[in-house]
C-alpha cells in the first residue's frame, strides 16, 4: 500500500508539473511594456513553486515508500523533533517567500506608485451592465462635461455627456478601446452601476471599475493589433458577454482616427476592427 501510494503521488506530481510545460496552454503573447518584467517574475515564482511542490511530493512519496510498516523494525524512531531543523526551515522559507514578495512589487510599483507621465493618451472608460463605453476627448484633448443626470441609454447618451459643453463637441464615445502603440496610456475608470473589471490578457493588466470612483491607471502597449477585452468582475446576468476589443494602433493611424468627427469615428473603428485579425492561437 505504501509503495502504491508513493508511486501514485509521484505520477500525479509528474503529470501536474508537465502540464505547465504545454506551450499551447500558456500566457498569450504579451503586448505591454511592463509585461516582460511581469512574465519574468511569474516564471521565477512558478519555478520556485514547481520546485517546492515537487520536492514536497517526492519527499512525501519517499516517506510512505520507505517507512511503511514492516517486520524488520519493531518500533518507529522515537523523536520529538529537532529545534535546529525547525530554525533552518523556518528561516530558509521566510527568506525565499518574503524575497519573492519583495521582488513582486517592482512591476506593481512601476504601474501604480506614480501618476501617468505627462502627455499620456487619455481615455475615460465608463462601464455599465454588459457594455463598455469608451469616451475619447477628441482633438482638443479635454473631456467634455458629464453628469449622471444626463445619462439616457435610450437615446444612446450612455455616459451622460453634456452636449452644451463646448469641450464636448469634439468628443467621441465608442464601445471599442483604441489606444496608441508605444505611448503611455492613461485610463480613467468609472462605472455607472456595479463593479466591473477591465481585463485584456495580452496586456497583463486588470483593474476594477468601481461606481462612485474615478480610478486612474496607466500602461504602455507596444504591439499594434486587435485583442479581446473582457469584464473580469461578476456584474450580473450577462457578465460573460460583456466583451469588447482593444485596438492598439500605430501613431499615424490613431491620430487620423481621433481627428475624425463622431460619426466618421464610428465607421473608421469598424474598418479598423475588420483590418486587424485577432492574435493567432498557439
Amino acid at each position, binding site marked *: 500500500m*505504501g509503495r502504491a501510494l508513493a508511486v501514485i503521488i509521484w505520477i500525479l506530481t509528474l503529470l501536474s508539473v508537465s502540464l505547465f510545460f*504545454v506551450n499551447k*496552454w*500558456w500566457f498569450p503573447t504579451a503586448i505591454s511594456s511592463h509585461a516582460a*518584467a511581469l512574465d519574468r517574475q*511569474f516564471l521565477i*515564482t512558478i519555478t*520556485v*513553486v514547481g520546485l517546492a*511542490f515537487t520536492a*514536497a511530493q517526492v*519527499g*512525501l512519496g519517499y*516517506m*510512505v515508500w520507505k*517507512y*511503511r510498516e514492516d517486520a524488520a523494525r519493531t*518500533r*518507529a*524512531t*522515537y*523523536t*520529538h*523533533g*529537532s529545534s535546529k*531543523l*525547525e530554525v533552518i*526551515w523556518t528561516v530558509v*522559507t521566510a527568506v525565499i517567500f518574503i524575497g519573492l*514578495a519583495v521582488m513582486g*512589487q*517592482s*512591476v*506593481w*510599483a512601476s504601474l*501604480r506608485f506614480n501618476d501617468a507621465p505627462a502627455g499620456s493618451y487619455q481615455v475615460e472608460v465608463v462601464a*455599465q451592465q454588459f457594455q463598455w463605453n469608451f469616451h475619447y476627448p477628441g482633438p482638443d484633448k479635454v473631456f467634455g462635461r458629464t453628469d449622471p443626470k444626463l*445619462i439616457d*441609454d435610450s437615446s444612446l447618451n450612455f455616459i*451622460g455627456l453634456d452636449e452644451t459643453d463646448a469641450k464636448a463637441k469634439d468628443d467621441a464615445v465608442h464601445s471599442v478601446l483604441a489606444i496608441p502603440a508605444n505611448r503611455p496610456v492613461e485610463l480613467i475608470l468609472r462605472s*455607472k*452601476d*456595479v463593479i466591473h*473589471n477591465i*481585463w485584456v*490578457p495580452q496586456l497583463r493588466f*486588470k*483593474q*476594477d471599475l*468601481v*461606481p*462612485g*470612483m474615478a480610478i486612474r491607471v496607466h500602461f504602455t502597449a507596444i504591439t499594434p493589433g486587435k485583442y*479581446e477585452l473582457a469584464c473580469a468582475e*461578476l456584474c*450580473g*446576468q450577462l*457578465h460573460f458577454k460583456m466583451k469588447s476589443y482593444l485596438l492598439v494602433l500605430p501613431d499615424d493611424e490613431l491620430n487620423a482616427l481621433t481627428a475624425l468627427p463622431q460619426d466618421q469615428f464610428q465607421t473608421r473603428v469598424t474598418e479598423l476592427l475588420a483590418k486587424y485579425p*485577432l492574435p493567432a*492561437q498557439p
Partner: protein
Amino acid sequence: MSGESHEAVHRHPAPTSFIRKYIFSLDHKVIGIQYIMLALAAVLVGMTMSVLMRMNLSWPGTNWPILGTLFPGGAPGGAMNPEFYLSLVTMHGTIMVFFVLTTAPQGGFGNYFLPIQIGAEDMAFPVLNMLSFWVTFVGFIVILAAIFFSGSESTVGPIGGWTGYAPLSALGQIAGPGQGMGMNLWIISIAIFCVGSLLGALNFITTLLNMRTRGMSLMRMPLTCWAWFTTAVLALLSFPVLLGGGILLLLDRLAGTSFFIPGGLYVSGILSGTNPNFPVHTGGSPILWQHLFWFFGHPEVYIAILPGMGATSHILATFARKPVFGYRAMVFAIFAIGLLGFFVWGHHMFISGMSPYSAMTFSILTLSIGVPSAVKTFNWLGTLWGGRIRFTTPMLFAIGFVSLFVAGGITGLVLGQTSLDLPMHDTYFVTAHFHLVMGVASIFGMFSATYFWFPKMFGRLMNESLGKFHFWVTFIGVYCIFVPMHTMGIVGMPRRFAQFTEYEYLKTLHPLVVFVSIAAIATVLVQIVFYFNLFWSMFKGKRAGENPWEATTLEWTTSSPPPHDNFAGHLPVVYRGPYEFAVPGAANDFVMQTQPEIAHQPVGQEGTSGNGHDGHRH
C-alpha cells in the same frame, strides 16, 4: 483544577425522552453528530450544483431534458441560461464554505472530540451549544429557502458569488435577475450563521481554557485541540464583522440606506432617486463591503482548514506510530497562521481600487503566512520520517491532505504578489488555488477524521476496502479536476463566466474544460461509496473496541461510543503528552496519556527495545 469539583459542577443526568436525547440535546456528542449530518446534507446540495455547473461549462447549450423538467425557468427546454448558472455559482460557494467547511470540521468533530480529548464531561455551556447548532440549522433552512424563493423564475438563488460584492448585491431587483428576495434570504442566512458560529466559538474557548482535566496542561493537549481552539478564536473575532457587514447590506437593500451604494448610479435605465424602485442613494462605498467581507473572509479560510491540519497531525502520528515531529513548532505555527490570517485580507483586493501601498503591505504579509504553513508541512514529513506507517483509510486521507495542502497552498506564492495578481486575479488559477487548499484539503482532513473517529462515535469500524477505494479515486480525481484549472487561469480564463464561447482566446482550453468536467462527475459519483460506507457501517460495521487504532489520547480511554458523561463518572488524569508512540522501554509501542508510568520490560526481549535515538523531550 480538581476532577471532583468538575464532576459536581457539570454533571447532568442523561436525558430519556427522544426529543431531549436526539433533537434538542445538550450532549456535545449528539450536537457534534448533528453538525456532521448537517454538513453531509449540505455537501450533497453543493456537489450537485457543481456537477450542474460543469455540465453547462463543458457542453454549453446542450439540452438536458431532465433539467428542463426540474427547472423550467432556469433551463427552458433543458438548456441552462446564464443567470441560472450564476445562481449555482453563488449557492455552491455559500453552502460549501459556510455549511460544509465551517460546520463539520469545527462544530462537528470539534464539538464531539474537544471535550473528550481534554478530559471534560461536556462543553462549558451545553445550552449555548444546543443553540449554536439549531441557529446554524435555521441558517441552512433559510439558504435552502433562497433556492425556492429567489424572486426570479430563472434562478435557484441570488447572483453574487459567495462574496456578494456590493453594489450588485445591494441594489435589489433593479440590478437584474438574482437580486431580489433570494439575495435578502442569502444575507439573512449568513447573518444567522454568524450568530450560530459565535455561540459555538465562545463555548469552545471557555471549555478549552477552563475544563481541562487534571494533568492536561496546554502543552499536553492533542494538536487537534490547539487547532479547534485557534479556529474558535478566529471565528470569535471575524464573524461579528461579517454580521455587521451583512446587516448594513440588508439595510441598503431594504431601508434605503447607503453604506455601500454611492450616489449618481444609473442602473437598468433608471437614475438613482428618479423611480420608486430605485431610491436615492449617496455617499456609500462599494470597497467598504469588500474590506468587511474579507476581514472575515480570509480568516474563514483558516477556520476551514485549521481543524483539518489538527486532525492530520493527530492521525499521521497515530499511524506512523511516532510522536508528532516538532509539537511545539506545530503549536506556534497554528498561532502564527491564526494571527497573520487577520492581516492579509487585502490580498483579495489588490485591484479593487484600494491604495497601491496598502496592496504592497498586504502582499508581503501574505507571503509571510506561507512560512508557518511550510513549517507545518516540514513537520508532517518529519512525523512520517522514521515511522512505521500503517496504511489505514484515515492514514491515506491524512497523507492525501498533506499532498493536497502543498499542491493548493503553494500557488499562494503567485497569487499573493501584487504584480502577478494583475493577470491572475479572478481567473481559474484562483479557483484552482482555493478549491485545492481550503476545499479539497479541508475535506480530506474531514474524511480522515471520519474514518478515524467513526469507531469511537458509533462503536463500529467503517469498511476498509470501500474506504480505500473511496480514497484512491477521490485522490486522483481531485488532482485531475483542479490542476488543469491552474493552466486555464494562466491562459486567462475568467471565473464566474456562464459560458466561454464568446472569446476566441479561450477556445484552446476546451479539451481541458471537458476533461475537468468528466473528472468532477466521476469524483462526485464515487462519494456515493462514502455515504454508503458511512451509513452501512453504523449498523453493520465490525465492532470496534475502546481503542481500535492503538492510539494514545483520552478519547480512546473510554467506551465506544462514550457514555453520556464521557468517562462514566471518573475523569481521567493525564500524565504525559499526547503522542507517546514508540517510547523505548515501554511495553507497547504506544503509551496512553493516562498511563502513570511507563512499564519497563526486561531489555533485549523481542519487540520491546524500540530503536529511538533521540530522546529529546519537551
